[in-house]
């Protein structure tokens, strides 16, 4: 499988990653190689293999429904570039 330069640009956009135009060709080659590996794995007969949803064996542990977190807004908001009236401010995005 071979990805085009446009495919790479689209993937970068979906992942919100800025990439250097000079690197597109090498990304296309690397990503195509990964997809080829997928194709190769797809050729294996996995009929008798249960899909794995996690590499570890244990089951998820659950917690009781009790409030354990206190309000630390002021502390968290020192990390943010802009805040106002308790809100985090971000560039306007209207979907």
């Amino acid at each position, binding site marked *: 499988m071979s990805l085009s330069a446009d495919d790479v640009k689209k993937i970068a956009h*979906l992942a*919100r990653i800025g990439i250097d135009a000079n690197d597109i060709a090498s990304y296309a080659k690397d990503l195509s190689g990964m997809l080829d590996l997928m194709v190769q794995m797809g050729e294996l007969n996995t009929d008798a293999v249960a*899909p794995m*949803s*996690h*590499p*570890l064996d*244990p*089951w*998820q*542990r*659950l*917690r*009781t*429904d*009790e*409030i*354990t*977190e206190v*309000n*630390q*807004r002021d502390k*968290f*908001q020192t990390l943010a570039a*802009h805040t*106002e*009236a*308790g*809100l*985090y*401010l*971000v*560039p*306007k*995005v*209207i*979907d």
Partner: protein
Amino acid sequence: MNSQWETVIGLEIHTQLATKTKIFSGAATAYGAEANTQACAVDLGLPGVLPVLNQEVVTMAIKFGLGIDAEIAPFSVFARKNYFYPDLPKGYQISQMELPIVGLGHMDIEIDGNSKRIGITRAHLEEDAGKSLHEDFHGLSGIDLNRAGTPLLEIVSEPEMSSAKEAVAYMRKIHELVRYLEISDGNMQEGSFRCDANVSVRPVGQTELGTRAELKNINSFKFVEKAINIEIERQIDVIESGGKVVQETRLYDSVNNETRSMRSKEEANDYRYFPDPDLLPVAIDANLKAEIKANLPELPAAKKQRFQTEYNLDPAVAANLTSSRQFADFYEAVVQASKAEIKLCTNWVTGDFIGALNKAGLEIQQTPISAIRLAGLLNCLADKTISGKTAKQVFDYMWHNDQTADEIIVAQGLKQITDSGAIEVIINGIIATNPAQVTQYQSGKTKVFGFFVGQVMKQTQGKANPAEVNKMLKEKLSV
């Protein structure tokens, strides 16, 4: 609507689960808190934190699954649904794709007296996103992440509804069920219960589905019906004028009663679902399932059936009385506490009582008259201490204070006069002082009878037993 077209509707209902804390963190979920005071490091998606699943969320999902007679997955997996939006700080929503907790189930609805079974494909758990506020923050958007991580159960129906009316009936049934199970407050104004509707049309007789549009985030029963109907009309118009319906997401604008394109499939996100490595698969223990099943409350359909047989009610009345668990409990408490006939209790609860609640805009939980007090009033009515008319008057008093019916009747001297001797004295007096009316009546002008009843009621301040007055007046006036 054009009868050459048939409609196919499927609903995705998002119901917020009524837990104290978030699905994956110990932060509170209370509605209306000050912005970002209930958003902890997990909800903010800070590096290095791990989600831990809330046990109550799993229990609630199982309750729902049992309520729709569905398969409960013996193990269930969480997945990441990836998209970028400022109110989703991690860049993905933890949801379920493969192996949702609740599998195939169903819900029966009633349309024009006929029952129809709607399949439920699945119900899965996921976390809600935060809220974006686009008011003026110097050209920026404000983000409140209190809602981020609030547990949601997404209930996905089969595309088996064929009108807006059926869709609303289904949505109401699901709403009723989640409230019966007490897994959600179902508050639509606060967004605890909202739905997306997938709508398509096809020529009658065609088996494959037409191209669908998805109507997003509708949060009232009224709007669901309107939005679907207007969308059906739009799609038929498009096709009949030679166009093609495109697969897209549309928003319902309730002000202009129209749907508007939000984004088409070409621009749609590829969510790139994959199992969340931060969460292990969840095992549902058969014992836990059995225990939850044993403790399920009586469900709406069973309760309605029981009310019909036990209290001899019409299906419509039984449906009305069982529309909420609290309301059904109230009715049963009245019936049990009252010596009055069931029919009298039913008439009062579904008549004056509901009327007064609606007028005051109150929920059943906020009723100023308890079931016991109402039963007391009905007892006074049943044993003829007061007339039906006086009962309404006493009911009004009771609405505004805490006294019992007995106390009010004594304090205001409302006890009905059933002593026929006392009534007879009054009637004799009235006949003696109104000879002209007596002559009129006896000459066949029976309309004047009302005058005599009025006079008796006036002199007894409305406390004479009307049936007794009628009977006695007729005897006295007949020649």
